[in-house]
């Protein structure tokens, strides 16, 4: 092993950090594996992108100082009639900032965020508890450092209250901001469920760093049992992670199997089995009706089948709903998200939308790979080039280490039955076929890591 100092690389897409000293043992890269020795077919364990998406991590202080000038008025560039303003500091917001800066080194860019704007790999939240990681441990950079690196301005903890599309001006409590082009990267929130009871407002939904921090704070109390509402992607990932972190978990879902819209039944069953082996309890065909405080500090949950469950914490993972409130107020066209065309333009041609909040013909592309392509489309359009966004079905990686899953299922393929290619102990392989053509697939277990190459055949 070379004695040269080990380097750290960051995945451009999701922020996963590859540390040469630690390697990536799950993918067979032993500690000490140098970047140049990473095989070309290696996949980022969080987002599935490749070795070429890793870049050297800049040496910037990773942790923000807590007591800095957060409360002071931020007297920074307010934006001007030439400025491109990005609203939102999630993966979508930062991605479009990066893409635009790469294409246009000069253009003034201002990123405005209601939160603190930390740069962190959002998919890592699903694996963080079992790894003992706190919210702070997931932060790779604070917003100011990232903005400095990109040569853009940033204004954090600043909610956009209203947009005057005629004057092209944003209203915030820290002053007005003029824009030339506006990009909405406003994300999504967990669906609110009609649950009654005096503890209903205590239900947590974890969808970002801040809410993950809240979860960690709650877990500092006497928590033994956690209830998860929803057996979708997030619900299953959390169920696996939380049981591994040592808690008892019950998952409640109105469907009869987990990830019912995505997986072949056999694979769903396998997932149920694997997670059950770790201690997950499932309540299918049921919903949570009410949540009330109990005398001992725990909660009493009443389910739609009249069964009663004692639990210490309830996490909602019932599905994401696009944040469209501001867009609606602005008069932009919305359906289940902010409507965009394949240039990612909204009904107002100076305003774009990206990521979890953007809907292209009713479909929302909430995964990292399409968001990256959307960012390219937007930055191309703004700089005068047309690179239309191709609405390809995304490759979905379910981060359930007890049974890794990789699925690609086109939106319109609900009527097509899965066909079994192979079912072995090391994993399953299913395909969706439209005549001669394979249009989708699902892989589980050890086979899941081979999804990248199959996906490439598909999209070409």
């Amino acid at each position, binding site marked *: 092993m070379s004695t040269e100092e080990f380097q750290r690389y960051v995945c451009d897409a999701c922020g996963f950090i590859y540390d040469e000293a630690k390697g990536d043992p799950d993918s067979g890269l032993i500690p000490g594996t140098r970047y140049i020795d990473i095989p070309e077919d290696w996949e980022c364990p969080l987002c599935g992108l490749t070795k070429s998406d890793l870049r050297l991590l800049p040496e910037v202080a990773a942790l923000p100082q807590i007591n800095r000038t957060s409360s002071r008025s931020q007297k920074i560039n307010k934006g001007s009639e030439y400025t491109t303003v990005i609203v939102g500091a999630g993966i979508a917001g930062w991605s479009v900032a990066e893409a635009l800066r790469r294409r246009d080194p000069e253009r003034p860019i201002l990123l405005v965020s209601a939160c603190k704007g930390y740069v962190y790999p959002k998919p890592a939240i699903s694996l963080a508890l079992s790894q003992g990681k706190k919210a702070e441990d997931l932060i790779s950079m604070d917003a100011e450092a990232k903005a400095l690196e990109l040569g853009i301005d940033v204004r954090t*903890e600043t*909610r956009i209250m209203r947009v005057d599309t005629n004057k092209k001006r944003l*209203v915030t*409590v820290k002053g007005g901001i003029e824009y030339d082009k506006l990009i909405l990267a406003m994300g999504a929130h967990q669906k609110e469920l009609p649950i009654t009871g005096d503890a209903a407002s205590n239900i947590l939904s974890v969808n970002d760093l801040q809410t993950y921090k809240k979860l960690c704070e709650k877990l500092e109390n006497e928590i033994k049992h956690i209830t998860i509402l929803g057996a979708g992607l997030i619900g299953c990932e959390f169920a696996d992670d939380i049981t591994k972190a040592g808690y008892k978990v019950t998952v409640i879902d109105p469907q009869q199997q987990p990830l019912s819209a995505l997986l072949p039944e056999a694979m769903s069953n396998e997932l149920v089995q694997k997670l059950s082996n770790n201690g997950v309890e499932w309540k299918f065909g049921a919903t949570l009706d009410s949540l009330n405080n109990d005398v001992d500090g725990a909660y009493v949950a009443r389910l739609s089948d009249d069964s009663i469950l004692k639990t210490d914490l309830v996490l909602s993972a019932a599905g994401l709903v696009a944040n469209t409130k501001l867009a609606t107020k602005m008069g932009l066209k919305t359906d289940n998200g902010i409507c965009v065309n394949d240039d990612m333009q909204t009904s107002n041609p100076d305003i774009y939308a990206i990521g979890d909040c953007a809907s292209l013909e009713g479909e929302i592309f909430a995964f990292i790979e399409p968001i990256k392509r959307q960012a390219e489309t937007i930055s191309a359009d703004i700089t005068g080039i047309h690179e239309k966004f191709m609405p390809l079905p995304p490759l979905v990686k379910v981060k359930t280490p007890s049974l890794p899953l990789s699925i690609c299922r086109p939106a319109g393929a609900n009527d097509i039955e899965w066909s079994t290619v192979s079912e072995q102990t090391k994993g399953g392989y299913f395909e969706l076929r439209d005549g001669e053509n394979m249009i989708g697939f699902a892989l589980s277990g050890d086979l899941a890591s081979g999804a990248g190459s199959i996906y490439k055949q598909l999209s070409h």
Partner: protein
Amino acid sequence: MNSIASNLLNTDTPLDELLDATRKIVDTDLKPLTVKIDLEGYYPESVMRKLGSEGVYRQHLSDMRSSGIPDMGAAIQAMGVVSHECMSTGFAIWCQDTCGWYIQNAANSTVRDNWLGKVSSGNVLGGTGMSNTMKAFAGIEDLRLKGKRVDGGYIVNGNLPWVSNLGKDHVFGTLFELEGRLGGSVMALVDCNAEGFELRLSAHFVALEGTRTFACIFKDVFIPDEMIIDDDGAAFLRRSRTGIVLLQFGMGIGNIQSCIDICRSVEPLLGHVNGYLDDRPDELQEELDDAVEAALILAEEPYETDDDYFREVLQLRLTAGELALKASQSAMLHTGAQGYLQTAPAQRKLRESYFVAIVTPAIKHLRKELDTLAQAA
């Protein structure tokens, strides 16, 4: 709809009419008194009564609206019109409006039934002794009033250094610490005629004179149960705090706009040289317009108790304080020597603007609370 409202009003005054009526009172009644208020400490009681009869104090009170929907934006804008001329009077309106806000938000319906109509019409004038409370809840100082539960009410002792818009027949809302209940506090309406209660005129200020500001001395003052607004003071403050701070924008908006107007008024004479100054009227106007728009949006949800929302209210309040200082400084520099005269508006605006910056919550208090909220997030 509440019965009081249905008895009093058939429709709510449209905003334009309310502001026109307010402007008229300002022009005919208040303007001749402004210098006297500022320099001699004259309290414009007749103006206060007249504003009350025009409905200025009831806009933000749902029970006093025929629609049942509070219009805090209207209350802020009317206060702005008055503060534009004289911030002492604007401040007295804030005291009156805030007192009404406490009564509207009372957990005890008796206090609401007995007092809301009187205070919201200006028949009874009132104030707010909550500066100490807000500082205490922000960890800046201790609560100054202590109460003890007795049969039929509380006995309260202590003192508050200055409470405004008071007089013998006035009332004001305040909060006292409850002995024997750890962290317990009670919100009450105090009758200035109560036995053992004394108003002491002690302090004089560089501005905001003519606001009937007194030290309040409580010596075994009995506050009966029918004057108790809420026996859970902390819960009361949580649901009322945004309204208290939001209403203050009326003072800030009026002060800042008048400074801008002063700068503009000397433009024909001094524009050729004032062009060399920073913070020109058009720049200030843009900043003010942004702040007003944000304030009116926040004012649409005066009952929001969420911390993120309160953070925005505080942040905007900070912006208003800083902008007032900047605008009044600019008014001084734009007017030069003529603004320096003892009766000139510019120097009065300068002194008033410091009040926007230091009245609770002061700039330092706001920064502390914003830091606390940021760390909790």
